[in-house]
Structures are given as structure tokens and as C-alpha cells.
């Protein structure tokens, strides 16, 4: 073996030993930490408002409605009005609801709600029939899924109940109605 051929492996080994630590130092020990992303919706940021047109079904009747919400963090106050289109009468529940948001930031905000209000039952084409108003309560839950910072989709299921009495006030009936609705929500500060 000549001198040059015996030196060549030593030179290669020395080059590897010298360069490897350099490469090792250049490469980060762990991936760079990403800058924290701001959540799409942050209910803790400030007081926020939402306008929610929606439609759905209550029993076999179609519904239309509008909800106005004022939100800060987990709590929202909601004013809701809707029309339930029946064959013999239209029902107009108007209620004030307290909403507990189960998440305060991100795209998906599930919530539970409870409220009370006035139910106006307006008969259709019944001679002599008058509008009947009763007090009612409701509870339920749903979720809002935000597609952008200003727009989302809202799904909700609710149970409504009210009492009505006959014309002589001798008998009270407790009535239950279930409603499922889907709508849009427009979010702004």
C-alpha cells in the first residue's frame, strides 16, 4: 500500500468528523415554534353582536325567524322572534333567551339556551276568532360553525312549552313543542 492510498481513508474520515458536527449545529434541534395563530372567532375579545335569520320545523309546521344576540365571553343575551306557519293558525313566539357558550374561540361554538317569552296565536280565516297570547318557556341547544370571521351556520334544537286554559279558565293544558332549525349567523363587533 502506498502512502497516498493509506492517507486517503484517513482524510475522508477526518472530513466526515469535521463536517458532521457543523451540519448538526446548523440543523435546529427541534422544529421552529410556529407563531400562535389568532382564533377565527374570539368571544373574549370584546362585546360581539350576531344577527341570525333561520328556518326550520316545529312539529309539522314550517318556521321562519330572526335572532339578535349580544355576546361577551361565555354569555349571550338573545332576542328571538319567529313565525310558525300552521294550517289553521300562525304562531308567533317572541322570547328573550340566555345563552351559555360552551367554547369562546375557534370555529365551532356549541351552546345551551334557556328563555321565556310571549306566544301569540293568530287564527287564520276563522270568523270571530281572536289572537290568543300565552306565556311560554323554552330550552335547548345548538352550535354555530363559523366559515369566516363574519359569517357562520347555526343549527339548533329546542323544546318549547306553554299552558293554555279553556275559555272558562277551568282547565289548564301543558303543551310541548319541539323545534329544529338551521340558519345563518352574521357576526360583528
Amino acid at each position, binding site marked *: 500500500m502506498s502512502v497516498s492510498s493509506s492517507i486517503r481513508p484517513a482524510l475522508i474520515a477526518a472530513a466526515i468528523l469535521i463536517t458532521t458536527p457543523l451540519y448538526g449545529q446548523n440543523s435546529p434541534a427541534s422544529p421552529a415554534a410556529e407563531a400562535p395563530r389568532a382564533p377565527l372567532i374570539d368571544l373574549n375579545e370584546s362585546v360581539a353582536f350576531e344577527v341570525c335569520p333561520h328556518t326550520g320545523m316545529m312539529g309539522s309546521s314550517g318556521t*321562519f325567524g330572526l335572532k339578535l344576540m349580544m355576546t361577551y365571553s361565555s354569555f349571550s343575551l338573545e332576542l328571538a322572534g319567529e313565525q310558525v306557519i300552521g294550517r289553521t293558525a300562525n304562531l308567533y313566539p317572541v322570547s328573550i333567551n340566555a345563552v351559555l357558550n360552551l367554547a369562546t374561540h375557534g370555529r365551532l361554538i356549541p351552546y345551551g339556551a334557556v328563555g321565556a317569552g310571549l306566544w301569540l296565536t293568530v287564527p287564520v280565516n276563522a270568523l270571530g276568532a281572536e289572537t290568543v297570547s300565552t306565556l311560554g318557556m323554552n330550552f335547548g341547544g345548538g352550535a354555530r360553525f363559523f366559515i369566516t370571521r363574519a359569517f357562520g351556520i347555526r343549527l339548533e334544537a329546542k323544546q318549547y312549552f306553554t299552558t293554555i286554559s279553556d275559555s272558562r279558565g277551568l282547565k289548564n293544558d301543558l303543551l310541548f313543542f319541539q323545534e329544529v332549525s338551521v340558519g345563518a349567523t352574521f357576526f360583528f363587533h
Partner: protein
Amino acid sequence: MTTTTLLSRGALFLALVAPPAGSAGAQARYEQSLSLSAGLYAASGFGTNFYTSGRYDYFIPGTRWFIEGSLGVGSLTSKVMSSVTKAQIFTSDNLVTYEFAGAFDYAPGGALPFFLFGVGGVREGEETHFAGVLGIGKRVALPGFLGSNALGFRYDIRDQIFSQVINHSDPFIVHNITATLGLQIYF
């Protein structure tokens, strides 16, 4: 089928679907619009009358979808009913409609129409019906019209489908058709 036929059909399809060069769709620049439309409302069994409607659209950014809320006013006046049968079916001839719908606009700047589906309320006299709504339409931007790039016109054809009972008849399905042309302002 020959290659020429295939190519010509493909070219026709592309011409319909592809937005014209330089016409950035309104959907890319604006998120909302208001429009005022006028046209005809054909109420099944009652005849056709003038109809006007106002519409609000929200264009979901980054998608080809938009949602729409609308309110329309028309009439149920029927010459046949009033002059021949002397019948008054509803308590008045007033017609009010409102709709809540979603629409898919595959080619906002192309020639294909958008397709719309949703629900609506049709108030005839004092009777309100919950209706399904199907429709097509087209939004056409009018860049530079009246010195603005935020104006356009639109046409809409809608079918409001609902179940109706008249004078204790069995329920039957009616199709009320509207055709309107309107001016649209984007913001």
C-alpha cells in the same frame, strides 16, 4: 362521435363556464349585495300579476355559494274570479312572499345561471303557506355603469311549491312561478 364534434362541444362548454377574460367576478370583490327586482308572479289558479321584490345576498368568501333573503309583494287579483265566478277565495288580494335560500353560482362571470334552493313563506290574504323554493338566475356585473363598478343586473325565475287547501278541498300541491329582472348593488 368525431374529434371535431367533441372539440366543438368542449369549446362551447368552456365558453359557457369560463368567465370572460378581465371580468373579475363580483363574488371575488364584494361580500354583499342588495337588489330590487320587478316582474311577474303567476299564482296557480289565480292568474298572473305584477310583482316586485327586494333581495339581500351574502357571498361566502372563497366559495361559489351565496345565501339570500328576499321579500316580495304582489297581487292575487283574478279577472276570471272577480267577473265570472264572483268568488272571493281569500280575505284580500294581497300577496306577500319571503324567502330564505342558498344558491350555487358555478360561473359568476360566465353564462351559466346560478341554482337556488330554499324555503319561503307565501302569504295570500291572511293565509300563510310554508313553501319550498327552487330557482335559477343570473347576476351580470355592469362595470363602469353610472360611473360605478358595484352595479349589476340580474334575472330570476323561481318556483314556490306548497300545499294548498281552498274551500275545504283536499290538499293539493301548487307551483307559483315568478320571473323578475332587477338592478343589483354590491358592497
